[in-house]
């Protein structure tokens, strides 16, 4: 297996654009293996037609973002939930 990935901070720009907040500090749970960790810890394959984020534990796809010129697609099928810190 090769290491063609970067860390989840590579998702920051596209997710900021969609959620209007920094999502890299959000905590996600992998729907495949239950791994729980910050979005920043995901393995992101970015030399692709979109961003593909995989679980650092089981390597299943947990999140995908495709950015078109005037729209984006976000696939979270592989994420059981995202815990997002909000101001109290």
């Amino acid at each position, binding site marked *: *297996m*090769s290491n*063609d990935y970067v860390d989840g901070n590579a998702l920051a720009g596209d997710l900021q654009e969609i959620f209007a907040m920094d999502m890299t500090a959000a905590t996600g749970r992998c729907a495949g293996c239950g791994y729980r960790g910050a979005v920043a810890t995901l393995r992101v394959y970015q030399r*692709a*037609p*979109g961003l593909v984020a995989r679980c650092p534990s089981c390597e299943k796809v947990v999140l*995908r973002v*495709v950015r078109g010129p005037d729209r984006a*697609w976000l696939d979270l099928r592989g994420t059981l939930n995202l815990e997002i810190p909000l101001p109290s």
Partner: protein
Amino acid sequence: MLTAGPTPRVPSDRWEFTVTTETGQRHTWSWQQMMALPAETITVDLHCVTKWSKLGTHWQGVSLDTLLAEVETAADYALAQCYGGYTTNLPLEDLLDGQAWVAYRYDDEDLAAEHGGPARLLVPHLYFWKSAKWVRGIQLLLEDEPGFWETAGYHDYGDPWREQRYQGD
């Protein structure tokens, strides 16, 4: 090299290619059996959806016409399935009539794992994401089933001449 995940490294003695029909009938070729089929030399232009093209690329492989010749099917659609989990969908007619191959050599050398080896699908008249790396089979389907990128916003068909990049293009 574009990749959506870790590069699968499949030794040829463990590689196989399976066509599964809509009724569940399976036709499987080992590497040795694939190598025994008539090989074709293919020189084609490639068009990637990330806006590069490569002209006059040189491949060797087995035509899907050869692999599907004895397969009885009423399917109109195909889903290419790959080692590593990647999938991509195509109309079956786009795999026939000299338009698609299981390619295992590039520029007169064995196809490296980074380029999809030991074998990849080659469908040069569509965007290159349809030319699935590390192909392990074709599922024949009565209904269209979107693949990896097609479920994430990319066009169902992907004709580069009509710039069919995203859904609705």
